[in-house]
């Protein structure tokens, strides 16, 4: 019975297919559906337009901060000047690293910008980064979600990469080292993983850029994992003496070592009173 009823419904519809209003009715249905689709589709750009307004206010904010805090050296349009490089094309990663670690703005025009308490907070830094990124494309700032070194890194492999690519300036244990004319490779102890990553992709100060072709993103994560392991590694042999090699060892043996022994020798040969 049911089956018959259903069949009769379809038959009823098909009976109208040659009706003279069938064509116009179909046209109306098509137009309505097209319009609705267009409406829905055009609604999407309208939300993204809202986001881009937010983005442009961020860029505006960044431009305002830039004009106040950076332009005296880097130029009003970040085009650079006699004492500071152009920032066009350096990307958000560079700004995030330099401003986020307090290197920029510089406290004084010394050999190189040093790490210090940041002057701008996270929002202001993001605004500056957005402004500089809007000038020309460059590497994006690294977000926490990318830093999966705990899961994807390999400590031992990171150590090998570190010794091959980083130790020549940053010392075997990441303690930093001297470069020419008072420049230096800073210590890597206590540096956020994010900033280590950004330094590798932007090459701040005297540091070369390690592109993803030279050191793949996974390898970068391994390096970070090794640095974090070195940071946490207890001093297995006793006092570390700064992890800078034999200079401090020699200093200790002449002061404490021989000092103690000579002191005892003086005591042993002192005249009884």
């Amino acid at each position, binding site marked *: 019975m049911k089956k018959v009823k259903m069949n009769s419904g379809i038959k009823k519809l098909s009976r109208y297919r040659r009706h003279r209003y069938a064509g116009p009715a179909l046209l109306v249905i098509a137009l309505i559906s097209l319009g609705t689709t267009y409406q829905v589709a055009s609604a999407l750009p309208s939300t993204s337009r809202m986001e881009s307004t937010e983005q442009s206010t961020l860029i505006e904010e960044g431009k305002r901060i830039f004009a106040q805090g950076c332009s005296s050296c880097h130029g009003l349009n970040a085009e650079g000047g006699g004492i500071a490089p152009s920032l066009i094309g350096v990307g958000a990663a560079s700004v995030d690293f330099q401003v986020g670690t307090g290197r920029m703005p510089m406290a004084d025009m010394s*050999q190189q910008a040093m790490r210090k308490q940041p002057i701008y907070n996270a929002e202001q830094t993001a605004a500056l980064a957005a402004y500089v990124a809007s000038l020309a494309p460059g590497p994006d700032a690294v977000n926490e979600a990318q830093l999966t070194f705990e899961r994807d890194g390999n*400590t*031992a492999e990171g*150590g*090998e990469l570190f*010794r*091959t690519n980083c*130790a*020549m*300036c*940053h*010392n*075997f*244990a990441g*303690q*930093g*080292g*001297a*470069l*020419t*004319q*008072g420049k*230096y*490779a800073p210590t890597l102890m206590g540096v956020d993983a994010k900033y280590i990553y950004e330094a590798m992709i932007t090459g701040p100060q005297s540091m070369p850029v390690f592109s993803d072709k030279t050191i793949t993103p996974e390898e970068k994560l391994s390096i970070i994992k*090794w640095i974090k*392991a*070195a940071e946490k*590694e207890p*001093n*297995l*042999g*006793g*006092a*570390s*003496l700064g*992890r*800078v*090699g*034999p*200079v*401090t*060892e*020699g200093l*200790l*043996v*002449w002061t*404490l*070592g*021989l000092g*103690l*022994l*000579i002191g*005892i*020798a*003086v005591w*042993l*040969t002192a005249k009884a009173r």
Partner: protein
Amino acid sequence: MKKAERIGGNVASYVDDRTGAAKWLRKNLTKVFPDHWSFMLGEIVLYSFIILLLSGTFLTFWFDPSQREVVYEGSYEPLENIKMSAAYASTLHISFDVRGGLLMRQIHHWAALIFMAGMIAHLMRVFFTGAFRKPREANWLIGIGLVTLGIVEGFLGYSLPDDLLSGTGIRIAEAIIQALPVVGSYLAFFAFGGAFPGEAFIPRIFTVHVLLLPGIFLALITIHLMLVWYQKHTQYPGPGRTEKNVVGYPLMPIYMAKAGGFFFIVFGVTAFLGAVASINPIWLYGPYNPGQISAGSQPDFYMGWLDGLVRMAPPIETHAFGHTISWNILIPGLIIPGILFTLMALYPFIEAWMTGDKREHHLLERPRNNPNRTAIGAMSLAFILVVLINGGNDIIATHFALTINQIMWFTRIGVIVIPPLTFVITKRICLSLQRADREKVLHGRETGRLVMLPHGEFIEVHEELTPAQKFTLTQHEQPPALEVPREDANGVLNPQGLKGKLRARFSQAHVEQVPAPTESEAKALESGHH
């Protein structure tokens, strides 16, 4: 007599009947040694050598002197599955998987540093007190040999673990060998059994480090001590001390106790350092790979001055007849150290020639009483210190916010300017001290007590020195300068030529002294009013 005493006596006479040991022992056990802290510097060296032998033997039980490539599977995670030499892997094994291994390694290395530092301190004592004079020139030469071999032995020792730092050092050693003109490259190929790094040098330096050099050390130290025994120990001047006697305590029991106790103290201090202070943390350096290097790579301190010399050398090379001569390595790496060690070895003979003094000396000199020698010693130390500073220039730069270039230029100029300045200043200080001694003998010690005399005059009370103190401050001899004849019997001017002139000039410099007060001067003062 108790039973134990009777048995002991029987054993003793049994041995004595057959060896005659009693007479020998009586003579030698009562041998007298003078007492002074600076005479124990050599003991520090001897005891740290014994510690080195003991701890080194322990390390050889597990060390594998081979450059065979292995994959690390030990308990230090940051190096897991890394390819390395068996030498490095076995050093990691000693450090982390052998009970007490890391402590022993650290004791061995600290003992090596104390051995070298003690030797240098002992050498300075012998130099500044004039203990190298006749008849002890041979022992001086043996000492110089020991210092030189000590530098080599230490360098080979820290090269054995085949870590990144030690490999860097070996690479520099290879560069210095290669810098030898003409034969350099052949010699380097011979030493390394082919191109650097090859697979031969760890087994080779192992044999030299644990067999050849310790054997030579044992022989030289034995001769050194036998000569001290035979020639008797020198002593500082004082009442009752002459060139013919030795004032001090007998070996048995006093020196046995002191020296034996001091051995345990040296061992204790070394073990203390090994327990609390990290030394050569090879696991942080990583395995050696010629493609890698660490910032601030430094040798141990006794090589540091050499490194400093090489670092300050300007880049000069000549190319001639298809050979490159690297003056920038050759001069600081071989020529200057060669000159320095030759001068140091020959100094006793140079001084004897300058002063014309051929007599035996068993009484030491206070450094101030021989201003020229003291100034020469201070000058040499200043030279070594300046180049040592340049050896650590990168560490000094980062830790004191200086630039490497500033330090290098400071030391480049300083190495020429500072030693002569040190010579002049030291000599003046010595002469001032002599003047102060003279003042003390003649006028007594200033007590700082002011006394008003009945008639109103204020005087400061000077406390007269005891006769013993006066003797000590005035006993030193002040020989006149050498008489070099201006013309000989036939009227020929300067018969000894330039050599004679030079000798007269040196002798003149050597005898520049503040005259020690004479007895008559002291008497004259005593009778008068000052």
